[in-house]
């Protein structure tokens, strides 16, 4: 593989009056991994999209191997070896893994007919790179819509790799991966580095940046504000660069649970297609963590409790049976649920922030709806969440990811829920919003809300929760609390080993 060097200088991108990027700068060359850091809305995605030809900048220059270049389209960038893996997936659900990976550059026989045998073989080779971290259901002929989110993300990475890029941008590409897949990806990145590939790594996870990157470029409010060599910097320093003027997020310490807190939710032998008998108690004012690898039944558990999927077993809410057949019933009994996929399950993108916040609550504003009161209530929650927005009438699509997530949570705060079910609420959310989020969870907990919290981020579970249930293959593999609640036990229980178990088989 040839060497490559790319530098972006003073890149500017405006959308109408909104400046998405005012002074973007980035240098990357063969054999190095550069982390691109910044809070949501700081211009990371805009800068990476300029580099990959997805959007045309208003001003600024791109130099590839020392020569000035402009990309009129993503294809133009791909033709010189630049490609990207995005968090929002670009796969076609009804096509197979192989078809998706080779879409638009299928291996051909005599330059005409698609060579399916060759395509399958090459796909098999690509999948083999992640062998041991994916299930056997991931094969060249599997339909993409039959795959879990983490494996779709793997396919997305393989698709970028199939172009044999010289420069690859990984934009939040690890957000859906489990820890083994991330570890494998980092091994591969090390290998690609040796072969001379240049890699730009965009992530909100600080530990990953310190594991994989050589340098970090920090963006704030659309401008590059600093460049650091990873081995000579600290997490603290980078975070301060990102959110200058704010207090750095020391891990928010969870409060102690009152020993006499009443049991709010009692779950006994809950089962669904995926869950094989789950039992636990959730107390008032408790922040109970759910851990484990992706797709081990955590989502099912939350959905079943909220009445969104059918389930068997016994659930008691404040001692009363609470078997719901529709989320509306759960909602009326004081449950609230923040789903895992914001865009497809959480928000109405094209509708206003006001309508999104009030969606579960319109009924209480009578007929005709008392819009003055509805607006005032929504405004109050927006303020409480320090929602950064143009107005309550702006569509949710105009918000950054972190702020959109605040809307998803905000609609439930308007109902003062007694039980809050959270499905990985900080996934792909910037550091600043995460800190606000943790503080909010602590406030809710102190006010007596019972919270069941699934997170794919182990650090988050360890720093926020007093007790964590680790799910594996539809069962609770371990209950970690007090001394047993540490990273080693969390990881080993996630993998299905039993040495960390505490009263469970």
């Amino acid at each position, binding site marked *: 593989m040839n060497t490559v060097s790319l530098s972006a200088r003073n890149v500017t991108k405006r959308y109408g009056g909104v400046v998405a990027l005012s002074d973007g700068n980035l240098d990357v060359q063969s054999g190095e991994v550069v982390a691109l850091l910044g809070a949501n809305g700081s211009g990371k995605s805009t800068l990476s999209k300029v580099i990959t030809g997805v959007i045309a900048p208003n001003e600024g220059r791109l130099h590839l191997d020392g020569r000035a270049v402009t990309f009129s389209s993503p294809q133009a960038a791909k033709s010189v070896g630049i490609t990207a893996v995005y968090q929002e997936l670009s796969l076609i659900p009804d096509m197979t893994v192989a078809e998706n990976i080779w879409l638009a550059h299928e291996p051909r026989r005599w330059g005409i007919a698609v060579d399916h045998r060759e395509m399958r073989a090459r796909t098999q080779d690509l999948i083999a790179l992640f062998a041991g971290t994916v299930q056997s259901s991931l094969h060249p002929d599997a339909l993409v819509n039959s795959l879990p989110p983490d494996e779709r993300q793997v396919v997305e990475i393989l698709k970028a790799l199939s172009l044999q890029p010289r420069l690859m941008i990984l934009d939040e590409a690890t957000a859906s991966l489990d820890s083994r897949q991330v570890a494998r990806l980092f091994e591969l990145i090390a290998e690609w580095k040796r072969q001379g590939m240049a890699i730009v790594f965009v992530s909100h996870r600080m530990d990953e940046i310190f594991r994989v990157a050589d340098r970090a470029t920090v963006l704030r409010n659309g401008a590059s504000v600093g460049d650091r060599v990873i081995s000579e910097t600290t997490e603290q320093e980078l975070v301060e660069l990102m959110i200058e003027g704010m207090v750095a997020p020391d891990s928010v310490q969870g409060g102690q649970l009152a020993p006499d807190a009443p049991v709010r939710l009692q779950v006994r032998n809950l089962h669904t297609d995926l869950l094989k008998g789950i039992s636990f108690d959730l107390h008032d004012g408790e922040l109970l963590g759910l851990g484990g690898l992706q797709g081990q039944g955590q989502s099912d558990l939350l959905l079943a409790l909220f009445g969104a999927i059918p389930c068997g077993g016994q659930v008691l809410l404040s001692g009363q049976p609470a078997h719901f057949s529709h989320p*509306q019933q759960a909602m009326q009994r004081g449950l609230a649920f923040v789903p895992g996929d914001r865009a497809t399950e*959480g928000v109405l993108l*094209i509708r206003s922030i006001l*309508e999104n916040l009030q*969606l*579960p609550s*319109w009924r209480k504003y009578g*007929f005709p709806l008392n819009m003055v009161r509805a607006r005032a209530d929504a405004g109050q929650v927006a303020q409480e969440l320090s929602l950064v927005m143009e107005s309550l009438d702006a569509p949710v699509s105009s918000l950054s990811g972190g702020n959109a997530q605040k809307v998803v949570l905000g609609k439930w705060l308007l109902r003062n829920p007694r039980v809050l079910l959270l499905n990985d609420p900080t996934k792909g959310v910037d550091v600043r919003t995460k800190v606000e989020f943790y503080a909010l969870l602590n406030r809710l907990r102190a006010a007596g809300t019972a919270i069941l919290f699934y997170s794919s981020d182990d650090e988050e579970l360890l720093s926020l929760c007093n007790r964590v249930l680790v799910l594996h293959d539809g069962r609770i593999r371990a209950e970690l609390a007090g001394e047993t609640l540490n990273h080693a036990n969390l990881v080993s229980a996630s993998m299905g080993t039993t040495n960390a178990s505490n009263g469970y088989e």
Partner: protein
Amino acid sequence: MIEAIQSLRQQSAQISPPVVALLLSILLFLAGGLINPNFLNVAQAVNIVRLASFLGIIAAGQTLVIISGGEGIDLSAGAVVTLGAILTFRLSSGQNDMILPALLVVLAVGAVIGFLNGVGIIVLQVPPLVMTLGMTGVVQGTILVLTQGELIGNMPPLLGRLIAEPLILGIPGVVILWVLVGLGMWLLLERTTYGKQLFAIGVNRTAARLSGVRVPFIVILTYTLSGVLAAFGGFVLLGFTQTVFLNLGGPYQFPAIAAVVVGGTVLSGGKGSYWGTMSGALVLTLIESLLRALQLQEAYKLMTLGITLVVLISIYGRQRSVRQ
């Protein structure tokens, strides 16, 4: 200078489709004056609004169904309009005191048809296009069985007076009725829980469900309302035509859908308004009147109408891409 033009273009891109449609209808009316000076007078304006009223009222239910998303469309509306008119004609038999009872029966029948559409779509999972197309056949068959090919009955004179003739200050009753329907639809869409939930299911049914919206209930209710409004449209139309025939409502089916779309309601659901549909109905009626004033042959009229629609919708499409 260039910046001024750019900012003007950006501003114009932010005008909503209903406003575009309304401006267009005023422009078309003025254009009519250029073609034929007799076109430009109050009586003609009133007449056009009167004609647009029928289309607008018939398109009300269609607006709800299209907003509900999930490829929502009600192709049975035209047939239900016909059935509504025929039932009114027959049940009232020209007696003024039978108008109200006839209306109630008509609305109930419309409700049943719409309800069946909704149940087919939700319970049997039939796509709306297929379900309502099938329902068109059933309703047309019902009309034939009911009438045995003979259209017996009469229009109550009072109905004609209330609908077609000037009621207050020279404004025909149907126009006043249309304004009332407009107010009612605005209340329904913007000031009721149902309206808010309707937009929600139009955008994203999963997110709506997880926020406590009973999606199947809202969908069935929407198709039921569409049936009721179409049947009501038939009742009103009878006051204008004074007589009935077997394909009375048919010619309104596609213009009604076009009026909804021209008014800026998005075919994929979740975004739109009834006042947009009202503007759309005005635009379509004006185009039609203009083409008639030009004395074009029917074939050319149809072609022009079709091309105008495509051009208009493509402008909306461009607007969206400008905004993103």
